[in-house]
């Protein structure tokens, strides 16, 4: 390799400083953006209204006649309890598996309905039966203790 080739491969002072400036800008930019990203990115448990519940009494059986349902608060999660027309009591997390709207019991059709996009679920097992929901609802465990309906995490 002659000296001319060697000169051609050398990085000039101006190019070196241009590169260094670019790298410094990138490093400085990342150093600035990282804390902003962390500041904005929420951590688990950040939301002060977050409450964990493993079991709770929803109502008395006599308050929930067959063919009726009601939405209730299960910790930080909306939930629905249903007394089907054939006498069974079931509870589910009331979060539509489609886009997260809150579902409700539909008395005429004895099923669970999401008003946002018309998704429907079976009131007995929470299975998605019509509309866009891709998955069944998450079931909760229902126990009857004397006259009380107790719902707990499955």
């Amino acid at each position, binding site marked *: 390799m002659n000296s001319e080739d060697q000169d051609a491969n050398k990085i000039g002072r101006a190019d070196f400083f241009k590169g260094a400036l670019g790298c410094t800008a990138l490093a400085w930019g990342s150093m600035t953006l990282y804390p902003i990203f962390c500041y904005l990115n929420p951590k688990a448990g*950040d939301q002060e209204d977050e409450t964990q519940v493993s079991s709770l009494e929803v109502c008395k059986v006599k308050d929930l006649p067959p063919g009726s349902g009601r939405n209730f608060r299960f910790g930080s999660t909306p939930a629905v309890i249903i007394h089907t027309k054939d006498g069974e009591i079931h509870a589910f997390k009331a979060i539509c598996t489609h886009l997260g709207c809150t579902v409700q019991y539909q008395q005429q059709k004895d099923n669970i309905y999401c008003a946002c996009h018309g998704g429907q679920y079976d009131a007995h097992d929470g299975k998605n039966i019509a509309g866009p929901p891709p998955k069944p609802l998450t079931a909760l465990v229902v126990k009857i203790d004397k006259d009380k309906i107790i719902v707990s995490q499955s």
Partner: protein
Amino acid sequence: MSGNTKLKNGLQAFLDERFNISSLLQIADKKKVPIHKHAVWYYMGGIATMYLAVQFITGILLMIYYVPEISSAHASILKINSKIDFGWFIRSLHSWGANLLIAILFAHLFSTFFMKAYRRPREFTWLTGLLLMVICMAFGFSGYLLPWDDVSFFATKIGLDIAAKTPLIGETVANMLRGGEHIGQATISRFFAIHVIVLPAALLALLGVHLLLVQLHGMSAPGSFNDLPEAKKTYEKFFPDFFYKDILVWILAANVLFALVMLNPWGIGPEADPFAPAPVGIKPEWYFLSMFQFLKLIPPMVGPIEGELFGMVLMGLAALGFVILPFVDNGKSKAWSRFATIFGLLILTGMILLSIWGALS
């Protein structure tokens, strides 16, 4: 020379020395507008700017009484609507104005599209316009949550859950916007900051570039005008001829806004309850209705892909078409020109039909 003329000339010379007024006046004097049968669409950008000014003024006024706090937000809007003198008027101007602004922007966007105003050298005028449209829709989305009523709560929930379906970054972005997993105080705070600071700043900067580009390139004219021999092309001066007509149109557009506000003041639904079921018949704002209906039609799973993601990819491709077309349809190929027109017509017809379907279903 009278004293008045002397003073006027002196003032003119003073200002000219400091602000170079005479060269600005020369530029303004040269600005001209082509006269042709589609020239009515030239007013759309001006009307949009006027409605935008209404949004800024009424928005600042609403901030005086609005409280971005979960237990007070709804009550503060109720107070604005019922207790504050002319509060209902200011809020209705803001809400109706937002809707009219989006409507006019759609007219502006599609009219410039069909007149092929995006062609070389105006590609970046078109792209900044597209971005401004996105910003205005983001304004609509973020502002919708702030009154904290039942419909706004679920509209935000659905919107963010759709955003969360974006591969890789979706969940992180949705969580950052939401401020956690649930919509609550953190979401209101974030949306408030986005609505009153982030978006206005972005909009003003981008609008500046958009308007500067319009001045640099002059008014675009449709092919039918460009094909005319030079002698047959007629123009009018922007100052004062077109400008006076612009002001007249602004007054008419402002009257439409006032009429809507007077005849149908903007109300507010019941306060959001995150644990109550979604209200029956809930629908997004009309400008999101076509997307809403489109997503509703897609089955839960399309092959191995989730329906929502599939729908988003299709809508993303349509949007990408609007971004790429200026670089492909440069006026040299008739086939591309026809393709662009058909593409635009398909999207526009689809949007109108889906919106009507969504509104009726």
